[in-house]
């Protein structure tokens, strides 16, 4: 088994090809092997990967702890709903609505960033948490005096995405095979996930990415390097938020229905957990975290059936047990792999090198004498 990754590393083109084929046929394998419902889970895994990669720009790259990230997801989703549903009788095409959602969310990212420029760490977390709740509460209450959001009932009958007359929201028969909407959305989400990965990679290696890293490490020193800390921080908020907005629009079209309930604090925390679990700042790690934290809770739903099969009746409500196991897994992670499952190069080095510092101090003193 050991030689397989080595072999793939020596043939990157082939590894890439294999991965592409696997991703292309995945929904069919999954729906045959596990059932059609699991394709939906796959779709959500991709959606969360986009969200986690977006939040990773803010938290992982720039080091700004944002606990209200879900608000941008909500804004993208609601904008999509407003512009293509019976709510206002508008039915604009998705290629107009999705970018608008990203833009709106990006704008709100700057709006959140501007007053919080001086805040860091815990203080920033509290303000962003408040922001997330404010947006959700607005959505919950903006049904009177003018009905904008339809309040807690949410907005229904949102148009599915339709590309050149081909609706992703309907069943199609292709080559005699029935193909269902989640499979079509899978390919759409895959496309946007790849797009997000590409942007995140380019950003990380750019001048802007280095400026974010500097601000994360030491803001005063970053300013002393000539970095415009204000604009660079606002840019991080805006970039991260626009991916949230994009994912929100995709979510609205996919679900066909949104309500404020989908955008609560727990969701923000979940996305942050994906980043921390996978490996903050590292793109493959963040994706792994998103996939694991979407798929695992679904898999743990089977716990009820297993209990019935093994014990004859359900002893612990699978929903409770699921959260318990999930919590335990997070605690174990933080104890045994604090840098995440796939830590970034820097964090891995950091966690490995901590012990060596004392010997180095002695060695460098020796050097100074010489």
């Amino acid at each position, binding site marked *: 088994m050991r030689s397989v990754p080595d072999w793939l590393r020596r043939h990157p083109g082939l590894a890439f090809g294999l991965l592409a084929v696997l991703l292309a046929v995945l929904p069919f394998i999954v729906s045959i092997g596990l059932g059609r419902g699991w394709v939906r889970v796959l779709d959500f895994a991709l959606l969360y990967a986009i969200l986690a990669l977006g939040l990773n720009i803010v938290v992982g790259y720039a080091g700004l702890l944002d606990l209200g990230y879900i608000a941008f997801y909500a804004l993208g989703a609601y904008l999509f709903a407003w512009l293509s549903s019976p709510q206002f009788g508008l039915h604009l095409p998705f290629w107009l609505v999705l970018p608008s959602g990203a833009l709106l969310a990006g704008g709100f990212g700057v709006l959140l960033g501007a007053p919080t420029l001086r805040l860091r760490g815990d203080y920033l977390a509290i303000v962003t948490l408040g922001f997330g709740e404010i947006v959700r509460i607005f959505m919950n209450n903006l049904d009177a005096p003018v009905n904008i959001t339809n309040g807690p009932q949410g907005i229904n009958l949102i148009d599915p995405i339709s590309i050149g007359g081909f609706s992703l929201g309907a069943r199609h028969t292709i080559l005699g095979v029935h193909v269902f909407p989640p499979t079509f959305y899978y390919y759409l989400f895959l496309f946007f996930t790849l797009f997000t990965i590409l942007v995140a990679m380019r950003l990380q290696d750019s001048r802007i990415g280095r400026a974010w890293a500097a601000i994360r490490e030491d803001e005063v020193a*970053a300013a002393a390097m000539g970095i415009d800390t204000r604009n660079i921080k606002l840019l991080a908020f805006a970039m991260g938020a626009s991916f949230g907005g994009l994912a929100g629009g995709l979510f609205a079209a996919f679900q066909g229905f949104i309500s404020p309930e989908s955008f609560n604090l727990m969701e923000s925390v979940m996305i942050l957990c994906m980043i921390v679990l996978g490996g903050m700042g590292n793109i493959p790690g963040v994706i792994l975290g998103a996939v694991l934290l979407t798929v695992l809770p679904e898999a743990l739903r089977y716990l009820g059936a297993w209990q019935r099969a093994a014990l004859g009746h359900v002893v612990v409500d699978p929903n409770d047990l699921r959260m318990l196991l999930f919590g335990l897994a997070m605690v174990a992670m933080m104890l045994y792999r604090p840098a995440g499952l796939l830590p970034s190069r820097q964090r891995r080095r950091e966690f490995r090198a901590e012990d060596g510092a004392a010997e180095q101090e002695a060695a460098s003193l020796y050097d100074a004498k010489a």
Partner: protein
Amino acid sequence: MSLLEVKGLKVAYGGIQAVRGIDLVIEQGELVCLIGANGAGKSSALKGLIGLVQHHGEVRFTGERLNGLPTHAIVAKGMTLVPEGRGIFARLSVAENLDMGAYTRRDVGPVRLDLNRVYDLFPRLAERRAQLAGTLSGGEQQMLALGRAIMARPRLLLLDEPSMGLAPIMVQKIYQTIAEIARDGVTILLVEQNAHLALQVSQRGYVMESGSVVLTGASQALADDPMVKAAYLGE
């Protein structure tokens, strides 16, 4: 025209006046020190100069008024600060830290020359270029902070307590390097609590006490001044 001219610089945090209107003049090529006890306002003065804190009074750099400019704009004009406590980027490598020093520069060739110069000054950094800066010893981190500042090719280098928290032998090494940087023609304003060292390496000095400059003159003269001797040199 002097490189830096400061008139009536004031810095306040809320109601507390940290700097109460000081005048400074620094000529091109000088190494000037600003000494004083803990809390005298030395660091606040530096932060005011480079726009990190709100300040009043006039700051002219190469004849141009700097007041109101954000820090990054002042840095782009050729002033660089090595902050107190070094301010290295702990989770970036040594080489990446040095790269950040040249953040505002677009001249690739000269940047490479300066990088070689830094590695010449601090062979230790060259050995550890791939290592995370946070894992360096305190002295090495100070070297890195100095090296990173050199990478900006500043016209005026502001150093805030470079000896802080270092073993005496490492302090000596750092000060040798500061003298060497000054010999390269970089103008330096050195803030230091260790008056003895600062007066040794500099040509002129200012003495600050509770927010005001109380004494100024050639470093040798300051070192011989009875009041300085009593208060700062412990003689």
